[in-house]
């Protein structure tokens, strides 16, 4: 951006693009809404955990193959990973200042969350659709 170009620009025009990215509200609302979704899913998950902790492979696979359980498990992955992706990104943006490490961590966080979600949901759907091995 040369200075000869700059002198024709109004102060407002120069200020534009330097401020907030206007993604803050969506980020905040996504965080709260995914949090609210997690309350019933977490409580259901605790009951499921108690039920499944002592069960053997066949019983657990049969439990996951029940459609309602497969759906709620998948929704737990989605809500939790949306929540965590946003929350951990916020921590990174709070504490990492330099651009390159910040970008690397934000992108790495996104990739890890998507990978975990894909692995989790595909595994659940496989059991739900084909049953245990």
């Amino acid at each position, binding site marked *: 951006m040369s200075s000869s170009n700059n002198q024709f620009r109004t102060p407002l025009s120069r200020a534009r693009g330097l401020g907030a990215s206007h993604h803050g509200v969506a980020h905040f609302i996504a965080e709260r809404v995914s949090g609210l979704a997690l309350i019933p899913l977490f409580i259901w998950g605790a009951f499921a955990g108690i039920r499944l902790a002592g069960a053997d492979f066949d019983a657990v696979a049969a439990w996951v193959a029940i459609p309602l359980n497969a759906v709620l498990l998948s929704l737990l992955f989605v809500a939790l990973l949306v929540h965590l992706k946003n929350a951990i990104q916020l921590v990174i943006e709070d504490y990492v200042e330099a651009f390159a490490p910040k970008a690397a961590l934000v992108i790495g966080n996104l990739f890890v969350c998507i990978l975990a979600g894909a*692995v*989790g949901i595909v595994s659940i759907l496989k059991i739900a659709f084909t049953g245990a091995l």
Partner: protein
Amino acid sequence: MTETSRGLPERPLSPHLQVWRWHITMACSILHRASLFALYIGVLLLAGWALSLASGPDHYACYTGLLGSLLGKLLLFGITVAVFYNVAYIVRQSFWDLGKGFAPKTADATGVAVIAFAIVAAAVTWIIAAATGAL
């Protein structure tokens, strides 16, 4: 800051970081961030659990054997505390979003309640699990 104080001698910063008194609402905020990292480990463990289940009985037995070890149980208990801490913390935050609960005494009380709920609910969950023979 360098823009606004141009030409003026450098001024001392307020000592707020050194004299900041430890209090419960601050601890809640820090614990919330810590609990998010615990949940991060938890969701990776859950994805690994689903993958091992989809990979067959041998992989599943191996994976649950690792989770069932003493170290695995300690980790899972910590994650259980983080899960219930988040449940209570989200409720607390939702009241804040409605504009309620900001009075210092209320904020302190709900902070204590959130921490207490997390520990008690996690303990009850594990006691029920133990009582039903799941451990």
